[in-house]
């Protein structure tokens, strides 16, 4: 049995002595799971994420990554296990060219130059960045700057990927493409922790959901179970995605109220109406 990818045990953190950002959060994320972390702004999502790669250290509590307590490990060492995508691409872009930007992390992790070259070319191709390879990333549009940061994370292919609102500011097509790439890594066994406000994305892609509210873990579970509880979600000022809301509107008609996708909704709805026709 593989060690869990991420284990938090009663982690607390304060940026300011009076305001706890994270309060005794405990959770275990098995290796290979696609986890969505949801909650309002200020609920502690980014704080929790930064605790998993050592950018922040808990005031109290313990963090284990792939079975290792990371308290004594420098960020550079944790980076071998955990890749991190910042919410704002400009917080991580700094190299003079896109190619250099992609090479930076790989060099830091000690890859050989032939391997670095191979991975850069692969990441450039995967994200349609070949035409921009020798341009300064800071001069590209927002959508492309976002793609550059995602490509540099992909080049590293760390066992655990943490992404803080990666699809914000991307159009629908670009967002789907990014999520499809993530799905491929997930297939290969990578663990994904994704912070998002997009409930539709959570419903369609995530296997497990952590709901944070005022620095506490309000609840956790598979998306179906989480979205079937609109009252609990509204405590965290969240609401289920449209398909699930529609299914909940039709509960009196016999729908379970936990559909996550168009296909599921249709199947359940039709099964109900066919049964009804058979009865009458």
């Amino acid at each position, binding site marked *: 049995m593989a060690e869990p990818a991420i284990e938090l045990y009663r982690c607390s953190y304060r940026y300011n002595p009076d305001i706890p950002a994270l309060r005794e959060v405990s959770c275990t994320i098995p290796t290979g799971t696609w986890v969505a972390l949801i909650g309002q702004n200020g609920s502690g999502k980014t704080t929790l994420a930064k605790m998993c790669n050592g950018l922040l250290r808990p005031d109290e509590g313990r963090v284990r990554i792939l079975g290792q307590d990371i308290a004594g490990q420098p960020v550079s060492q944790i980076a071998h296990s955990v890749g991190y995508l910042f919410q704002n691409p400009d917080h991580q872009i700094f190299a003079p060219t896109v190619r250099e930007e992609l090479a930076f992390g790989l060099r830091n992790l000690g890859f050989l130059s032939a391997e670095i070259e191979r991975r850069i070319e692969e990441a450039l191709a995967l994200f349609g960045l070949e035409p921009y390879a020798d341009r300064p990333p800071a001069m590209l549009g927002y959508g492309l700057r976002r793609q550059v940061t995602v490509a540099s994370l992909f080049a590293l292919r760390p066992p655990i990927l943490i992404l803080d609102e990666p699809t914000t500011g991307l159009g629908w097509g*670009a967002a789907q493409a990014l999520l499809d790439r993530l799905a491929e890594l997930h297939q290969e066994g990578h663990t994904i922790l994704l912070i998002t406000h997009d409930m539709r994305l959570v419903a369609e892609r995530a296997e497990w959901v952590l709901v944070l509210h005022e620095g506490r873990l309000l609840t956790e579970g598979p998306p179906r179970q989480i979205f079937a509880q609109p009252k609990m979600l509204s405590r965290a000022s969240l609401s289920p995605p*449209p398909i699930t809301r529609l299914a909940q509107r*039709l509960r009196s008609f016999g729908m379970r109220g936990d559909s996550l996708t168009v296909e599921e909704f249709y199947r359940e709805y039709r099964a109900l109406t066919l049964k009804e026709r058979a009865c009458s």
Partner: protein
Amino acid sequence: MKPIVSIENLYYAYPPLKVGAEPIPVLKGVSLSLAQGECLALLGPTGAGKSTLCLTLNGIIPHLTGGTFRGEVRVAEHDTREMDPGELSQRVGLVFQDPKSQLFNMTVEDEVAFGPESLALPPGEIEARIDEALKTMGISDLRHRSPLELSGGQKQRVALAAILAMRPEVLVLDEPTASLDPAGKRSVLEAMRHLRERTQMAILWVTQDVDKVPLLADRVAVLGQGKILLNGKPAEVFGQAEKLRDLGLALPRMRQLAIYFNEREESGYTWLTVEEAACDLGEDTGG
């Protein structure tokens, strides 16, 4: 009725970044109009020129940016190139994605008073405008707070109130909810709904949130490759599923569900909202 905004065959290229380089064309023949009291949602992929189009409405383009500008933009029948940017800013109010970029005063009241004060209006009038703008945005209780300590949704409503206090004829909202969390989004959309009920302001609303578009917009236009590719009522525009998909744009979730039904059965569903779908699906088999 004459449109309050009319854009005719607009071409615009930013000045080149390096001397001697080619200008960078963004708008390549845009024609679009906006009537008083109308809310027009503007969709388009990243880089289509949505924000550029917004900046032509209040004259920032070309007055402050230069560049190559052909065709015309008329606001209340005046050519924006012949209007003073100060005067234009009273007629056209702009709110951006990130509210922090437009707030700079110590209190919400000062923030909202700033515009009317700069117009040198009488104090009674300023007071009345502040009251009204705060009320419309549902933030009267925040009047004496610092904008810095407010949530994202509250900040965005302060930015909107500050614009409303100028009583513009046209409101341009460039992805006003994109940087907000779900509760913030809801509060700003609710404020927009209030605004539509209380005023006849024309609204150009740039957004990616297609599930919300049918709830607020009278009309939808799609900008792509520097041109208006689709323009019509939400039901018409979202009826062009394949065109939207080719542009990398999302369909409202309920329209996707309708298409899924239609492809499998001989139904002709055209839902855009959860309400519409619930109504059809509940009635269809409930009785």
